[in-house]
């Protein structure tokens, strides 16, 4: 039986974490490679790097980070943030990432999903979706709309339609981020997660809102997510990944128990 995955997400700018990360003993670390190694040792099932670098020099630094991560940890990891071309995907994958995630680049040019899937296999292509709750309408029948630019720009695209479309285009997985829940620490958007995960055949990673260990339980059971993305809940030392997994395992969720 497949285990549910716990996936810490690291935001990187110019090769450094955007915020220091605290481990037990209150050590503050800013190096993404070192933090990835610690999470790997703590039992992370996968790691997501989100590159918020704008400049092309910063991008090259990220490629170097990816290479160093790939020499250090031996679990899958993905890289997202500003990926718009096949060439950029290729660089990231050759540097050692298992998967690349496309978000606004795919909204602007959906063909990139198919091109990526053909070139590297579906399993490499993760569709990142940023979603906001809106009034249900003819255009947005699910009541969830795709947004880009951190939620500032509404795209007039229905989230459920886009998830199914991306699956048809060849995406191997969806990372579903609720802009409404993101950063609140009040729990994942369960209704949205359930809607998407029960309507596509590819795995769905729920993202945004994890503040308590019970939130992970809810999203992995009631909302049927295949994986839970976490950030603050582990970055600030509230829990270790091992503690989260122990709790979830004790609550009947299938987890990878030894690593």
């Amino acid at each position, binding site marked *: 039986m497949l285990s549910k*995955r716990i996936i810490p997400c690291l935001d990187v700018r110019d090769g450094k974490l955007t915020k220091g990360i605290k481990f037990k003993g209150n050590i503050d670390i800013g190096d993404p490679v070192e933090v990835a190694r610690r999470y790997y040792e703590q039992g992370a099932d996968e790691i997501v790097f989100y590159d918020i670098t704008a400049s092309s020099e910063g991008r090259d630094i990220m490629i170097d980070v990816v290479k160093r991560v790939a020499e250090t940890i031996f679990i899958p990891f993905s890289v997202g943030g500003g990926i718009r071309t096949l060439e950029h995907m290729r660089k990231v994958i050759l540097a050692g990432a298992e998967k690349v995630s496309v978000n606004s680049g795919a909204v602007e040019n959906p063909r990139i999903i198919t091109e990526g899937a053909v070139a590297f296999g579906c*399993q490499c292509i993760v569709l990142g979706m940023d979603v906001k709750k809106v009034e249900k309408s003819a255009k947005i029948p699910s009541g969830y709309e795709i947004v880009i630019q951190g939620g500032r720009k509404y795209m007039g695209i229905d989230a459920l339609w886009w998830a199914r479309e991306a699956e048809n285009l060849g995406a191997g997985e969806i990372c579903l981020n609720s802009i409404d829940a993101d950063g609140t620490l009040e729990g994942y958007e369960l209704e949205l997660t359930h809607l998407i995960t029960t309507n596509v055949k590819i*795995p769905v990673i729920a993202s945004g809102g994890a503040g308590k260990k019970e939130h992970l339980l809810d999203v992995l059971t009631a909302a049927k997510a295949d994986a839970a993305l976490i950030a603050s809940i582990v970055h600030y030392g509230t829990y270790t990944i091992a503690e989260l997994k122990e709790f979830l395992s004790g609550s009947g969720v299938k987890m990878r128990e030894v690593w």
Partner: protein
Amino acid sequence: MLIAESRRLMIAIVDYRAGNLTSVARALQYLGVPCVITDRAEELRRADRVIFPGVGAAGEAMRNIEEKGLAGCIREIYDAGTPLLGICLGTQVIFEYSEEDNRTTCLGIIPGGVKRFPEGMSEKGDPLKIPHMGWNRVAFRENHPLFAGIPGNAEFYFVHSYYPAPSESSDVAGETDYGIRFASAVARRNLVAVQFHPEKSGRFGLKILENFSRWDGSHAQ
């Protein structure tokens, strides 16, 4: 003329343009095991051990293997008794055929085929997703040297939509449950082939690679 040649035991990784070659090489480097990625038959025949990796589709893989003239070479390596490790797609093309890409004829080293997970599989009432992607257990069936030191609750990273179905049950070395029970590891003589990715399966995956780097190809039962 005899030339005393002292060289470290070398693992060759078969390059047939499939993915994950560098991941396997990086894992071996981390373990301090010398390796080379190559598509040259000469170099593959000379290697002390061979890893046949792969990510992608069977049809494309077989086309690349044929184009590079490596089909015969891989068979020879197996026949010569060189320890051989298949990983993921590398494992699948070792069978006689794969249902992928309108049935692809494969290398036929292990009798049997590779089948697509059936539609409509479910577990506890929930539909199961395809690909089978993530961490799952492997019930290793025999006391094979490659799986020494692996605890029963260890999990391995899988990503695949087709599964190995060996026709001889004596070839099954490990099984995994995902809707159905399938052979996630097969072993025959000097060949071991796994459906999961040891290079992405943390400490226990590395342990299998390390075991392989010391294995002489015999079954120590």
